[in-house]
Structures are given as C-alpha cells and as structure tokens.
C-alpha cells in the first residue's frame, strides 16, 4: 500500500520538482475548456433548435443529420475526427493563401471540437423545451404586437427554461467529464497533466485520485448550482412530485 500513501508534501510542491502548479494549470484549462465549449454548444443548440422548428426542409434535413450522427457516434471518435479534420483543413487553408502551417492552440481546438459535439445534444434539449411552451402563449405575444425577438425574450425564453434547465444541467456535467477526452488528442488539461505527473513519479493511484476528487467536486458544486437555478426558474409553478 506504500504507493497509495505517497509523500504528498513532496509531490505537490510548486515549481520544477513538484506537480502542484501543473495540476492547477490543468484544472484551470479543464474549466476553461468546459465553460467555453458549453457556451459554444448552447449557442449552436439555440440556432439548431430554431432551425429545426422554423427553417425550410433543406436546413431541417441537415440539422437532423447533424443531431442524429453526432449523438450516435462515440464522442472520442468525433473528437479525433474533428481534431484531425479541423487542424488539417485549417493548415491547408493557410498554405493555399501562402502562409505556412500554424501551431494550433490545443485548448482552442478542444473548445471548438467539444462545443461542436455538445451542440447536437443542446439542439435536442432546447428544441424539446421550446416545443413544450404552449402555442397559445406565443400566439398571444404575437397578438400583442411583439416582434419575434421580443416575443422570444419575454415569453418563450422564460417559459421554456423550466423544461430546459434539467437537460442543460446534465449537459454541463457531461461536458466537464467529456473534457477529459480531449487529452487523447494532446490538449494539456487536467487529465493529461495528471497522466504526465503520474507517469513521471510512478505514483499513479495518488495522482488519479487527486484528479478524480477534483472532477467530483466540480460535479457536486454544479449540482447545487443547477438545483438552485431550477428552483429559481420554476418559481410560481407547481412543485414537482
């Protein structure tokens, strides 16, 4: 059991000998990737949901293809496909305009890739939530002469949030966990930094437990946050059983 009780005071020092700074930067990168990819995913999801509900048949078919394929293929496969395709495509583009290949920021690529995958799930969550808003309320807003944007902001959005928040909360938990997957394509976030630290010191169990505790605390904190949020957007509505 000596590998479990590692000399934490030595391993977790700041600077060249210990791994505390690497782990902290990894954790920061994980949170960065999760937050930005989540925001990107929800923006895509909002566009996708609106497209699915109100666009013409061609856009609808394309969006159906996007949500079906992206939800049926493993995230890891998608991340690799998008990562290689994205970096390769961008470099070819740069070459064709006469600039040499560029070194891409691993975190930026991770955000783009995860957000694109997340967008498919967000589209479905938001579409279902928007559809759950009674049509009469939207029609009433129109009858009051509200522009589509005003009607969305003042009627549809607040009315759909109680339906959307639980799903969006799950998506947030998923993306914090899925952010570990981008370590496979080399982004330096917490899972990857942990792997480096564990491999360098051979204290595998210690470092993976530290990383697991970090992810776990993000999840537990987020649970509190989302249940508060759900409570807030549901105010004035009957309690759930």
């Amino acid at each position, binding site marked *: 059991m*000596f*590998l479990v009780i590692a000399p934490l005071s030595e391993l977790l020092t700041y600077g060249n000998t210990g791994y505390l700074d690497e782990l902290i930067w990894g954790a920061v990168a994980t949170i960065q990737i999760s937050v930005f990819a989540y925001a990107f995913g929800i923006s895509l999801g909002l566009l996708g949901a609106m497209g699915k509900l109100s666009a013409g048949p061609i856009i609808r078919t394309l969006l159906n293809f996007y949500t079906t394929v992206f939800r049926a*293929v493993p995230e890891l496969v998608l991340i690799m496909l998008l990562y290689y395709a994205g970096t390769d495509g961008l470099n070819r583009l740069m070459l064709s305009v006469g600039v040499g290949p560029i070194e891409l920021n691993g975190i930026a690529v991770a955000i783009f890739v995860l957000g694109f995958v997340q967008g498919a799930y967000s589209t479905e969550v938001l579409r279902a939530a928007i559809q759950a808003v009674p049509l009469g309320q939207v029609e009433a807003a129109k009858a009051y002469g509200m522009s589509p944007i005003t009607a969305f902001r003042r009627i549809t959005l607040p009315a759909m949030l109680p339906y959307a928040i639980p799903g969006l909360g799950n998506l947030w938990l998923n993306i914090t966990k899925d952010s570990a997957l981008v370590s496979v394509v080399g982004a330096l976030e917490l899972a990857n930094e942990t792997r480096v630290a564990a491999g360098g010191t051979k204290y595998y169990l210690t470092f*993976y437990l530290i990383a*697991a505790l970090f992810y776990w605390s993000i999840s537990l904190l987020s649970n509190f946050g989302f249940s508060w949020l759900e409570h807030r957007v549901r105010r004035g509505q009957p309690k759930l059983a």
Partner: protein
Amino acid sequence: MNWSWIAYPEYIHLLAVGLLYTIILLFGSVIVGFILAVPLGLVQVTGPAYLRIPAKIFCSFIRGTPLLIQMWLLYYGLGSIFPSIPWIRTSFLWPVLREGFYYAMLSLSLSVAGYEGEIMRGAFLGVPRGELEAARAFGMSGWKVLSRVWFPRAVLQVLPTLAGEMISQLKSTPLAFTVTVMELMGARSKISSDTYIIYEPLILIAIIYMILTFIITRGFNYLERLIPQRR
C-alpha cells in the same frame, strides 16, 4: 479518400476482432453492471445506513468523475500496485491482472452500476406503496415481496431507459483503447499507424458505431412491444 487498405485481409480481421471486443465489452459491462445496480438501488431505498451511505457515495463518485479517469485509476493505479506484491506475480490471477481488457471491463461495469443504480433507486421508489402493502397483506415474506412484486415492477419502469443506457455505454467502449484493448478504436489505431491513413478508418468505425446504435434502438423497440402493458 484512400480506401485501398480495406482490401487487406489482416485489417479486415483486425476490425472484425475489434467489433467482437466492442460487443463483448458492451454486453458484458451492461449485464454485470445491471446485476450490481439492483442491490445498489435497493439499499439506497431500504438499506441500513452502513449500506445506504456507501452506495450513495459510490453512485455519486461514478456519476461525478470522467470514465476515462476511472479507467486509468483502475488500470494504472491499481495495476501498478499488483506487480509490487510478490505472491500475485506467481498466482493464477496474474494473467488476468496484467491484461487491460479486464480493467476496461471492470470500469465499464462499475460505470453502468453507478448510473443504473441511481435509476434503479428511482424505480424502486416509484413502485406504488399500496402494491407492496397488498403483497405484505397476502402474507408474503420480505424476499417474496421483492422477487414477485417490487423487483419486477421496478424493472418494467427501468426498461425504457435501458436502450438509452446501452447506447451511451456503446459510446463509452472506445475509451478501452486507452488501456490497450484492441476493440474497434484500438483496431483503427493499429491500422492508422501501419498505413498512415487517419480519416478513412475513423470514418469507417464511426459508421459501424452508427449501425450498432441503430440495431440497439430497433432491438429495444421490438422488446418493448413484446411486453404487454396495461395503463
């Protein structure tokens, strides 16, 4: 697009074995995980505190941490401890404890157990109290209530969620390639490193995963229609 590699029998063989491994990981982990999930759900509803609290912590940990970290925790973490214990190296368990496949299977199963345990908890809670009281009133013992009323009713509630759970589990199996298992993702990785072709093998396995998802969806639709439901 360069698909010439697909004509080589060795790559077809790799992919076929990979598909087999993926299917074994999928069904093995779902079956083992579900068997573990039933007691995990049950003790959270009726168990004494010394079972209920660990079960709750286990489910929360599994659901709150990335599967990749769990898998590495088992494979690299536990796996690095075993070789340091001399008698394990000579025991019959050594071939098992050395193989990434078993660690992948274990962590995938524990993952199903955690997620499905939480769902089973809800399902056990969702069985109407009156039915359990009626079973009691008929003089059934605690076990008989569980096996004849409580468990079957709870499982029927869980069945519709099982299809989704199977699909998300299928999408978790490629993680096994990070612990050296040669399932579909591992086979693709071997083909890519042999031929320097990256996209085509990835696209091929993406299509295979989509077909598997389609089969699971259809299969569960069929199963659900077989079970008579009265509402």
